[in-house]
C-alpha cells in the first residue's frame, strides 16, 4: 500500500504539469489580454485607448514574449516556491489565494455535510420502502436539485428572501473564528444551494448501496433470527451501506470545488470561485494558474486519500 501511494504521488507531477500547460495554452488563444482589461474600460466607460498604448503596456507586463518563455518563467518561479505576482492587483498571488481558499473549503465542507445529512435519510427511506409512494416521493425530491440550474435556484432564494422576508445574509465577510454567527449566516444559503445540487447523487448511492447490503446473507440471517426491521436497518445494514456514501462524498467534495463558482458570485462569497471569475474577466492568468494548481492538488490528494481509505475500510480491496 505504501508503494502504491508513492506511485500515485509521483504521477501527481505530470498531471499537474498537463493541467497548467492546458490552462496556459487556453488563455493564450482566448481573445483579450490583461493590457486590454486594464486600459480599455468597460461597457459605457471606454476611453479611446490607442493600439500604441496597449502595446506599451503589454511590453511592460511581459505579455509580448513568446508563450513558452512566459510559461517557463512562470514554472521557474513556482518551482522556487513563488506563485507569481497578479497582473491585475500587482501584489503576490499567494496573499489573495490564502484567505479565499479557506472560505471555499468551509463552504464545500458545509455543503457536503448538509447534503449527506439530507441524502442519507432520504436514501434509506427509499431503500426500505422500495417501490412505494414514499420511495418515489423521496427520489423526486432529491432530484429537484440536479434538474434546476444552480444559478436559477440561487437567484430564486435571494429574491424570495428579499421580497417576502426583507432579509438577506449580511454583506461583507467574517471568518468562522472572528464571528461564527455572522459567518454561518453568510455561508448557509450558498451551502444549501450547493447541497441541494448534490442531494440526488448521494441519495441515489445511499439507496442502491442499502438495497444491496440488505440482500446480503448476514442480513437475511438477522431477519431470520427475528430481529425487527428497524434494528436490522440501523445496526447491520447502515454500517456497511455507508462506506460507498462516504467515498462518493469525497469525490463530490472535489467536484464542489469547481461548482462553487456560480454560487459564490450570486451570494457574494469572497472565495476561490469569485477570484477565479475575476481572474478570467481580467485575463489575470497568473492568478488563474495558481488557482488551478491549488484546486488540482486538492482534488488529486483527495482522490488518493479516498482510494487509500478503501484498504483501511474494506479489507477485500487489493492495490495493484
Amino acid at each position, binding site marked *: 500500500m505504501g508503494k502504491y501511494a508513492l506511485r500515485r504521488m509521483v504521477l501527481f507531477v505530470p498531471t499537474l504539469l498537463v493541467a497548467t500547460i492546458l490552462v496556459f495554452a487556453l488563455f493564450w488563444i482566448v481573445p483579450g489580454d490583461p493590457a486590454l482589461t486594464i486600459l480599455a474600460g468597460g461597457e459605457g466607460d471606454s476611453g479611446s485607448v490607442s493600439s500604441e498604448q496597449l502595446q506599451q503596456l503589454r511590453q511592460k507586463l511581459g505579455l509580448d514574449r513568446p508563450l513558452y518563455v512566459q510559461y517557463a518563467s512562470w514554472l521557474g518561479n513556482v518551482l522556487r516556491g513563488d506563485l507569481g505576482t497578479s497582473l491585475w492587483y500587482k501584489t503576490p498571488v499567494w496573499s489573495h489565494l490564502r484567505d479565499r481558499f479557506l472560505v471555499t473549503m468551509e463552504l464545500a465542507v458545509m455543503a457536503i455535510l448538509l447534503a449527506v445529512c439530507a441524502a442519507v435519510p432520504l436514501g434509506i427511506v427509499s431503500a426500505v420502502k422500495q417501490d412505494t409512494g414514499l420511495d418515489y416521493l423521496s427520489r423526486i425530491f432529491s432530484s429537484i436539485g*440536479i434538474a434546476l440550474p444552480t444559478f*436559477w435556484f440561487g437567484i430564486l432564494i435571494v429574491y424570495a428572501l428579499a421580497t417576502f422576508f426583507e432579509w438577506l445574509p449580511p454583506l461583507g465577510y467574517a471568518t468562522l473564528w472572528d464571528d461564527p454567527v455572522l459567518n454561518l449566516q453568510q455561508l448557509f444559503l450558498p451551502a444549501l444551494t450547493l447541497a441541494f445540487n448534490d442531494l440526488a447523487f448521494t441519495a441515489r448511492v445511499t439507496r442502491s448501496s442499502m*438495497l444491496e447490503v440488505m440482500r446480503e446473507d448476514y442480513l437475511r440471517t438477522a431477519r431470520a433470527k427475528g430481529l425487527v426491521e428497524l434494528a436490522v436497518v440501523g445496526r447491520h445494514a447502515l454500517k456497511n451501506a455507508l462506506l460507498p456514501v462516504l467515498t462518493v462524498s469525497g469525490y463530490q467534495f472535489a467536484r464542489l470545488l469547481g461548482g462553487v463558482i456560480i454560487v459564490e458570485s450570486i451570494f457574494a462569497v469572497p472565495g476561490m470561485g469569485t477570484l477565479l471569475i475575476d481572474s478570467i474577466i481580467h485575463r489575470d492568468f497568473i492568478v488563474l494558474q495558481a488557482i488551478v494548481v491549488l484546486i488540482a492538488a486538492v*482534488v488529486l490528494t483527495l482522490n488518493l486519500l479516498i482510494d487509500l481509505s478503501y484498504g483501511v475500510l474494506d479489507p477485500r480491496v487489493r492495490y495493484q
Partner: protein
Amino acid sequence: MLAGREAVVARTIPDTRSEAPAHAPWAAVIKFAGRKPLGAMGGLIVLALVLTALLAPLISPHDPRQIIREANNRVPVYVAPGPAYLMGTDHVGRDIASRIIYGARISLYVGLGSVLIGVTGWFLVGMVSAYAGPRVDLVAQRVVDAMMAVPGLIIVLAIMAVLGSSLNNVIIAIVIGMLAPVVRTVRSQVLSVKEMEYVVAARAIGARSARVVVRHIMPNCLAIYLILATYYLGFAIILEASLSFLGVGVPPDVPSWGGMLTAAAQGHITKAPWAGIFPGLAIFIVVLGFNLLGDALRDVLEPRLRGARLGARLAR
C-alpha cells in the same frame, strides 16, 4: 460542475432485483412501466419533448424569433400570460409559449448533439484506454486526470471565448466538458468487466480476445452507453443554461430555455415572473425526465455488474 456525472454508473451499485428485459418490445415496455413507474414517467416526458420538437411549427402560435407588433406598431413587452399570449411575452416582446415550444428543438439538438458526439467519442477513447496497453493508458489517464482536476468551467469558458457563441460551439464546449468523466467511467467499467469471473473464465478456456469483446464486453458496454447517454442528455441541457448565465451561451435570438431563463434572471423576476418560471419549469421537467429514465434504465440494464465491488473499481 462538469464532473457532476463523473462515474455515475461506476460508483453506483445496481438495484439487483431487476432482470434482463423480455423479448417482445411492447411487452417489455409495459413490463418496464409496471415495474418502474418513475422510469415510465421519465420516458413519457422525453416522448413529449420529442413530439413537441417535431411538431413545433404546427403547434406554436407565433414565430419564436419575431418581435410581435400589435396594432399601431405597439410592441408587447412583458405582457402577462393570458388569452393572447398563453405564457406571456418576454423582455423584447416575443411570445414565450412559442419560444418554449421551439426551445424543445434547441434542447434536443444540444442534448443529442453533445451526447452523440461526446458520449460516443469519449466512450471509444475510454475503451481504447482500457485495452491499448499500459503506456497509452498512462498517458491518456494523465490527460483525463488533468482535465478532471481543472474546474470544467474554466475550460468551457475559454472554449466559448475562442469560438464565439453559436449553437454548435455550445455543443463543442459541452462535448469537451464531458471528456474526463465519460472516459474515466467507461474505462473503469471496462476494466471491471474485463476481470469478472465469466470473462476471465472465457479467456481461460481459450476464447479469442475479439470474441470476448463481442460476446461479453460489448453488451455490458452498450448498457453503460445507454445509461450515460440518458443522463448526459439532461446534463447538457443544464450546462447549456449555465453557459447562458455566464454570458457565453447560444446567440440571444435563438430560443433556448437556458437563454430565456438567463434573460429573465437578469431582468425582472418580481415584475415578470412568467418570463423565468416557464423556461425554468421546462428545464426542470425535462431534466427530471431524463434522470428518472436514466435511473430506471440503470436498474434494468445493469444487472450483470452486480458482483463488481465499488472499491475494486475505484482503486485503479
